[in-house]
């Protein structure tokens, strides 16, 4: 358990201290078909689309399902036709609190992270952020059933 209040930690802790080293990226010319394979190989729901280390967009499973499926679209078309453009990025040295604000306001699942030169270096996913937040409760919460006095019919709860 951390000893400081969470509000303080959210200001002090920097994004680079909590992210995983994994980043799925592709050039804007990649086809939708290749993108689906790339996402599944990496067990990811997103691709950061970048050109010369600059972020130009994000292509997610939501873009795929909302824009491509059932619309008679040729899967050889490039990602750049379907990606979300003008994505917000954060500097990897910014506090974690900023990422929570940005994700909450924008409803993004992924925020591309850049260095001081504006080059793409990583990505922060909503799952990483939630795992980070979950560390702040007393660990006993993990082991409690929804109602502490409720007994399950079987040990598995089924």
């Amino acid at each position: 358990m951390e000893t400081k209040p969470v509000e303080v930690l959210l200001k002090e802790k920097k994004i680079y201290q909590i992210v995983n080293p994994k980043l799925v990226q592709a050039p804007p010319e990649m086809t939708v078909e290749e993108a689906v394979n790339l996402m599944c190989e990496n067990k990811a729901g997103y691709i950061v689309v970048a050109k010369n280390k600059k972020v130009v967009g994000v292509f997610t499973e939501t873009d795929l399902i909302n824009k491509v499926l059932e619309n008679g679209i040729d899967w050889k078309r490039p990602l750049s036709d379907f990606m979300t453009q003008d994505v917000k990025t954060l500097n990897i040295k910014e506090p974690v609190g900023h990422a929570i604000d940005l994700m909450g306001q924008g409803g993004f699942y992924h925020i591309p992270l850049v260095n001081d030169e504006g080059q793409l270096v990583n990505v922060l996913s909503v799952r990483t952020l939630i795992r980070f937040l979950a560390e702040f409760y007393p660990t006993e919460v993990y082991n409690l059933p929804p109602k502490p006095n409720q007994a399950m019919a079987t040990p598995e709860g089924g």
Partner: protein
Amino acid sequence: MKIICPSCSYENIEGEDRCAQCFHSLMQRDIPRPRKDDNFQNVMMTAPVAELLTGKDLLVASTTDTIQRIVKIFQEKKKNCVLIYKKKKLVGIISNRDILRRVVLPHKDLSTVKAEEVMTANPEFVRAEDPIAYAVNKMAMGGFRHLPVLANDGTPLSIIMIIDVLRYIARRKKP
């Protein structure tokens, strides 16, 4: 008199120090309490999931509905998650991720694949009165971005999204 384990619900003999089945401690007197000086912990451990409910995010499909229809509805309503019910009982959940992995990647025909072939069966869920911390923990441990919220009789109240939780935290963390 039996002591019910808070972790696995096994009925232990009174006086045991730990659960005979799962070794969870039986010596805690109370549920854990948040630190008094920590506003964030206080909010998360005391505010109920009910605070996140909008009543607007609830889609329900039956096991025999096709993925084609589900995708159409996702597109129309800008949603990305649907609960699967069979005879008034929650049996599964389908999110964008399930469709990507189990339909799009293997190039299946959307018009013939049924919800029950694609759904993640027996999903985790929460109740409206559970603390938000409990939902956050389930999402973090399971890697879920959506959690059904059910009433005590098993009927659905809502689906909470991970983004709703972050939005709530973003609003409440300001001192």
